[in-house]
């Protein structure tokens, strides 16, 4: 469960990226966050997984107050949140297997378990034959799926996807959206940030629209 109360976020003296944002997302919900470029979508997601701290206001995620969270607890919280970053954030000098395994290694699983889970997940996302590839050798769509694999391998309670179909053709877009729906049906809360109106046209899901940092 995510609860934001009157969250402001300012970077220096610029116009604030988020203004008085209050938002509740319940367990297992599927929500789109939309709005034009620069509206504050990425910033909102960053507040949720605590990559940025709110300038003022309260943020509660899975019962934890993000204003007062300690290093260790923050690490545990992040293990409950899978994130597909807008710029993927894959390590270019580690191959696909290693990039995905990262999210399990930090939790101290034995190597045999890590291997099995990574193979499974990569197969699930159609990347079984790319394990040894390095990110620069992959297409944009493939990198996006590697990022998704890393985000879901831990069976997180919350999945945040920032423009997960950003530079994909319509077929791949459909494929990724289908994967996200499937992950959602397994009980994971999914939040997708996108500026694409295309993606939202036929959906009956909840849509939160941001404009210049405000929810409209």
């Amino acid at each position, binding site marked *: 469960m995510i609860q934001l109360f009157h969250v402001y976020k300012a970077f220096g003296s610029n116009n604030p990226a988020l203004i008085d944002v209050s938002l509740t997302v319940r367990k297992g919900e599927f929500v789109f966050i939309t709005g034009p470029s620069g509206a504050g979508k990425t910033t909102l997601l960053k507040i949720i*997984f605590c*990559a940025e701290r709110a300038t003022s206001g309260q943020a509660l995620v899975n019962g934890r107050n993000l204003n007062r969270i300690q*290093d*260790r607890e923050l*690490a*545990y*919280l*992040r*293990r409950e*949140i899978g*994130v597909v*970053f807008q710029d993927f*954030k894959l*390590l270019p*000098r580690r191959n696909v297997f290693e990039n995905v395994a*990262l*999210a399990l*290694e*930090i*939790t*101290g*699983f*034995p*190597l045999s378990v890590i291997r099995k889970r990574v193979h499974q997940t990569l197969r699930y996302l159609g990347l079984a034959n790319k394990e040894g590839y390095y990110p620069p050798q992959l297409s944009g769509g493939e990198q996006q799926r590697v990022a998704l694999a*890393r985000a879901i391998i*831990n069976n997180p309670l919350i999945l945040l996807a920032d423009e997960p179909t950003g530079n994909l053709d319509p077929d791949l877009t459909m494929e990724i959206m289908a994967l996200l729906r499937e992950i959602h049906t397994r009980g994971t809360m999914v939040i997708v940030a996108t500026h694409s109106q295309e993606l939202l046209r036929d959906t009956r899901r909840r849509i939160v629209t941001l404009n210049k940092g405000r929810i409209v």
Partner: protein
Amino acid sequence: MKITFLPYFIRQAMANIFNNRLVHLIGVGTMAIAFLIFDAFILIFLNLNYWSEERGKLLTMSVYFREEPERIVLEDIEKELLYFPGVTIKGFISKDDAMESLRRQLGNKAGLLDGLRENPLPASLEIILSRDKGGNSLPYQLKTRLEGIDIVDEVQYSEEWIERFQAIMEAVKIIGMVLGGLLFLAALFIITNTIKLTIYSRRDEIEILKLVGATNRFVKIPFLIEGSIQGFLGGSVALVILFLIYMIFITRVDLIIGFASLDIIFLPAQFIYFLLLMSIIVGFVGSTISLGRFFRV
């Protein structure tokens, strides 16, 4: 910290060293230079100390007689002296010998002595004591013993200059410790910055690890292992270079002088262990400091 992490940390540290060979090479090189200066300083200091100890071990003692001793009496005294460990007889100086050497010392003013009716200079026996073998109380022991003999007038030994010399060595020691400390800090500073370079070159990785839920400690430990390995390598390289320089130096000195007249020692084993341990600690502390700076951001 779960024990299952240990293989991961070591694997990670090794992989990181391999993947960042160049940065590591520069780091090890810089550390080696810093340690080399430090090690060389310790070596020089150690040799100074060693020489001074060698010097301080020997002490000259003069036994003055009331009158020219008879040969048999003299031989008895010499025989008795030689019972003491660490005693060597340097030689006997008769009244005439003493006058002769005084004349030589006075040079053209020796004429002053012509007016003397009899030779006022005492005969003496010069002996050398080794403190190593005889112990610190030997000079005093001998003095009381010899002064008990009728014919012996006075026994003198020069403790003064030894004390002065020791005072100088104490000062050198303090200066050495201060300088050594400063060099140590300089090495730590250089090392902290090199490690910062390593960390900086991997800030993306650190960021991502943190974002997927790694604890600070988990992110830091491979760096600490890396820093320690780097310190160990730097320390080892420094010692090897120092040894090579030492070898070249002593063979040169031998060539020039013709024989090993100067007794230059290399670092003893305990010092080598100590310096290696210290380089590991410096690597560890250096990475802790630079990580601290990095994580505060």
